[in-house]
């Protein structure tokens, strides 16, 4: 028997191109204060704490340990960390609550990419023998994926541009966005290529920031908020590591995760998709089975705010916030990890009715 688990509080920083004045713990602390303060809890009220980050971004070894300074870890807390996006920290916390070992959990993800060269840093997650020594950067790999999609006849550059235009326009209502633009698809198509077939507007910005969520189970969730956003299904799956062994125009792991999470069990009002390059959104919509009537990335999505290691968790936050406010009844949040959508997490969020 599964326990009902809800998102009961959320917080995020503005996703800035560069946070230079504050260190990581100084960047994160206001978010932790906000996510706890919004529902009047302190660290001692939370049974479990789980974070997602990677030391490669800021080049600081064991930064996730020093970041605990900002959590308030005394008296000693039960804590865990994933070297992944905060969405996977949320998954671990959800599992912990399912086991009965916790009724509440604090989840956060943060990333400060600005000290390094993110596209090169991301190349370090590739196969170390045959691929990483070639230093293919993340934009180049996404361009290969976009090219494969065009060659397959499944999409056109105009469709890429439409995704970029819509995302940047939606971001105008998102105060936390790194960039927002009122640009038509035609204007985007007139731009030169950054890495063919991708134009600059097809690519996510690189942002610094942090995000946090509090989860609570059953009655505890109702005590903490009048508008819990219930996680009705959550699953994550992974495709093989070798890029040459995958059909980059498809995402079987997303399709399987969506099936296990029950995306198709009822109509979906809106979805927040972790697509850092516009072709990836088209691949994900297909794999998730989302029709044209579904509102995609009303926040502007990762094309407008892309804090690495938090952007997946932010998808959950943007979806949960809209369910909590009543703007959406049933929402899908998706997070990805690895090159070219290698690993994918799908979460179905519903309101009380």
């Amino acid at each position: 028997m599964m326990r009902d688990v809800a998102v009961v509080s959320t917080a995020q920083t503005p996703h800035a191109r560069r946070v230079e004045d504050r260190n990581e713990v100084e960047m994160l602390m206001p978010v932790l204060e906000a996510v706890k303060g919004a529902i009047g809890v302190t660290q001692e009220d939370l049974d479990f704490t789980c974070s997602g980050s990677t030391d490669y971004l800021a080049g600081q070894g064991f930064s996730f340990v020093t970041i605990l300074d900002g959590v308030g870890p005394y008296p000693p807390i039960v804590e865990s960390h994933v070297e992944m996006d905060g969405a996977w920290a949320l998954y671990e916390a959800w599992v912990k609550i399912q086991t009965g070992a916790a009724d509440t959990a604090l989840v956060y993800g943060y990333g400060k990419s600005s000290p390094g060269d993110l596209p090169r840093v991301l190349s370090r997650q590739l196969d170390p023998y045959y691929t990483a020594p070639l230093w293919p950067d993340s934009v180049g790999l996404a361009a290969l994926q976009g090219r494969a999609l065009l060659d397959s006849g499944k999409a056109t550059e105009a469709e890429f541009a439409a995704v970029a235009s819509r995302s940047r326009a939606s971001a105008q209502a998102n105060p936390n966005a790194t960039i927002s633009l009122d640009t038509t698809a035609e204007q985007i198509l007139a731009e030169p290529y950054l890495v063919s077939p991708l134009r600059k507007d097809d690519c996510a910005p690189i942002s610094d920031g942090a995000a946090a969520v509090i989860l609570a189970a059953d009655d505890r969730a109702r005590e903490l908020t009048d508008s819990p956003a219930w996680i009705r299904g959550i699953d994550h799956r992974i495709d093989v590591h070798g890029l040459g062994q995958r059909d980059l125009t498809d995402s079987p792991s997303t399709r399987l995760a969506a099936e296990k999470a029950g995306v198709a069990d009822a109509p979906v009002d809106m979805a927040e998709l972790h697509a850092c390059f516009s072709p990836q959104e088209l691949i994900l919509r297909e794999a998730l089975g989302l029709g044209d009537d579904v509102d995609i990335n009303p926040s502007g999505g990762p094309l407008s705010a892309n804090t690495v290691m938090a952007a997946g968790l932010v998808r959950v936050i943007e979806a949960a916030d809209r369910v909590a406010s009543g703007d959406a009844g049933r929402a899908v949040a998706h997070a990805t990890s690895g090159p070219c959508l290698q690993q994918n997490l799908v979460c179905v969020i519903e309101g009380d009715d």
Partner: protein
Amino acid sequence: MTEPIEVSAMPDGLWSQPAVDTAAIDVLGGVEPVRSIRTPASLTYRYTPGLSQSRFLNAMAEGKILGERCPQCGKVYVPSRGACPVDGVPTTEPVEVADRGTVVSYCIVNVEFTGRGFDIPYASALVLPDGGDIPLFGLIQETSHEDVHVGMRVEAKWKPPEEWEKSLENIEWWRPSGEPDADPETYRELV
């Protein structure tokens, strides 16, 4: 002749692979197998210390050791990284601590690695500055390493002011201050 590759040493059924058609690589039988590869990699970062550590480093450039006090527990961290690691709240009240203090831990270094030409062996130590609640790392000089002990009182040996930078290295080392040993109660939590 290369040795056959054993796919699995596990008993049958526990872990096995289907038969693989190796025809394509059989022709490589006479080729020396690759045992290892080297793929050097490096990444460059532009580090920024943050608000709290910037305040500490700016004070160092003026010959001051600046800590920050936790508004909840009252402890003074030197340098603060921005948060009280016990209470999880920002440390914002700056507190100047003394450039003298007490050795609360030390070790004898027998390997030359600082590149600063110290005679080995020498002592490196954790020094609790008067007015602070956590120790700073430093070297002990101007005394025999055999005389270094917990409770020993020391003072900072600064570089000449014209050489001061935004760096903890403005303190070249710590040396005996000549005071009697500190009362163990003053550093009991730290040993």
